[in-house]
């Protein structure tokens, strides 16, 4: 028995007669099939429809060119403006909060509370969050005060976005702060460095990739948000998700692949950001190993 255990523990894969290991990938077929049908196929449909002429059939790229006229561009700039503002503010605030959480007792009540709270609030966005803000600072029915700027863009909706972005930042950035080893701080002190120098020369460069990566994740998250801004009840369409909804549901007739074209634009926008995020994640992970 012991001998057998040693042999296998040496790392040799047990080879069974007649079975070639290269068919093992078949075990992933259920997963791949599922994803192909419910993720890749709809995406393909959207991209396909975006480059075709909706009435006459055949390929038609002029609809894509429409994306660059000033009205369509305004939806993209609106989306970018709102997402950038809320992400950067939430990233900075969230980082501060994450540091406060990380510097406490790892098993303590406060950390547990804040992590659970962040877990809940990060997913809280959407219809119910809009209700909560309307109840809190809505222009006429606000509980706390009446915010005249509540229906301003990007101020009013930006505040709501920040509310669910900060917990997301805490969840994403906390592991990075946890990864700051105490020894580095001690090393810095032993060399005579002050707190400021520690942050400026040691911690900040180490945390920078993770911080920027997390900001990008927040950015992509904000770009994709739809439910919250819909429930905000401002009827002016500022962002791409709102305009996609209008394109699909308009009863006064727009080009019938307008939604697909906008969706394509959105995918490109978010893809660029996510690529940036992944590159930075890999860079950050190197230091935290």
């Amino acid at each position, binding site marked *: 028995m012991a001998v*057998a*255990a040693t042999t*296998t*523990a040496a790392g040799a894969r*047990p080879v069974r007669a007649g079975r070639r290991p290269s068919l*093992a990938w078949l*075990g*992933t077929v259920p*997963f791949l099939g*599922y*994803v192909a049908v*419910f*993720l890749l*196929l*709809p*995406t393909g*449909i*959207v991209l396909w429809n975006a480059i075709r002429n909706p009435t006459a059939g055949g390929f038609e790229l002029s609809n894509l060119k429409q994306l660059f006229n000033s009205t369509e561009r305004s939806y993209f700039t609106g989306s970018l403006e709102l997402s950038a503002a809320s992400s950067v503010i939430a990233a900075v605030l969230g980082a501060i*909060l994450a540091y*406060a959480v990380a*510097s406490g007792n790892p098993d303590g009540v406060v950390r*547990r509370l804040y*992590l*659970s*709270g962040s*877990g*809940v*609030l990060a997913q*809280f966005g959407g*219809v*119910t*969050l809009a*209700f*909560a803000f309307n*109840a*809190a600072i809505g222009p006429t029915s606000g*509980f*706390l005060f009446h915010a005249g700027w509540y229906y301003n863009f990007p101020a009013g909706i930006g505040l709501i976005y920040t*509310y669910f972005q*900060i917990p997301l930042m805490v969840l994403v950035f906390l592991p990075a702060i946890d990864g700051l080893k105490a*020894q580095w701080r*001690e*090393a810095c*002190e032993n060399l005579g460095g002050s*707190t400021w120098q520690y942050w400026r020369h040691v911690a900040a460069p180490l945390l920078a990739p993770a911080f920027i990566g997390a900001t990008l994740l927040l950015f*992509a998250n904000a770009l*994709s948000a*739809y*439910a919250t801004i819909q*429930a905000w009840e401002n009827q002016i369409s500022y962002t791409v*998700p709102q305009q*996609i909804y209008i394109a*699909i*549901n308009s009863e006064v007739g727009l080009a019938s692949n307008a939604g*697909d074209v906008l*969706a394509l634009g*959105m*995918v490109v926008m*978010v893809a660029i950001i*996510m690529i940036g995020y992944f590159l930075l994640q890999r860079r950050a992970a190197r230091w935290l190993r």
Partner: protein
Amino acid sequence: MAAVTSIGETPLAGQGKRQGGMQVGRRRRLNIFRYITFTLFSLFFLLPLLALVRFSLEGKKLGTWSGAAWGQILSYPGLFSAIEITLELAVISCLVVLLLLVPTMIWIRLRVQGLSRVIEFLCLLPLVIPAIVLVVGLGPIYNKIEHYNVSALQLFWVYVILALPYAYRALATGLGAIDVTTLSEAARSLGANWITVMFRVIVPNMWQAILNSMLLTSALVLGEFTVASILNYLNLQVALFNISRATQNAGVLFSTSTAALLFAFVLLLILSYIGRRRSAGGSWTASLEALVRRGRR
């Protein structure tokens, strides 16, 4: 140079510093910072929630108190069935996510490591193709589905996809913390087949990750609005949205929202306590030892 090497060699010197004034001062400044931060952020996060609760207790006339809105969660026409459907959707989506991801991820880890990048990419793809984009292309697919079943429970097919990034990350963290190869080789050398390895050896060691991913999936399903509303299904969020558009006295909106939030929060809190006890009680190395010991008997 000498100063650097001396750190590792003279830990006691460092300890001496710990009792010194600089360390205490820093600790005090840190604590002040923490208190201020926590107070400010708690205020920011709690105030809208407080407004939610206050409005859920609002009576017929502004300024009065009444618990009526809470009772309406059960009695408001159409709301209760939407709640039921959403809860069922959450359960179904969790199960399908686990069924889809756990065996696949373990299998990849054990047998087909080359595909792990592909699976990771596919699982993170829904972050790049968000719900609002996905739903534009889902029309024809849901046409086909509705031929067989018109229930809103069919939404689970999409919800699983939406949950993939979060569930994948939770499960990957759990899987990464245990030495899957060693455990599986030990078990197989004791005669276990692959099914036993997966479900009786590896899965019990990733309980916390599994619970975590179930929670993330459920939170997503409870809060999902985009896909359901555009595909014309009635789930909890869509029902709430319709109520807010149609009726004046919307107390039930606030009570339902508060209830949903409390529900998710309590679940998460429980999960964080369960997690601690499990990791304290048994680690995967202990399971490995138990396996080997059993084999030796």
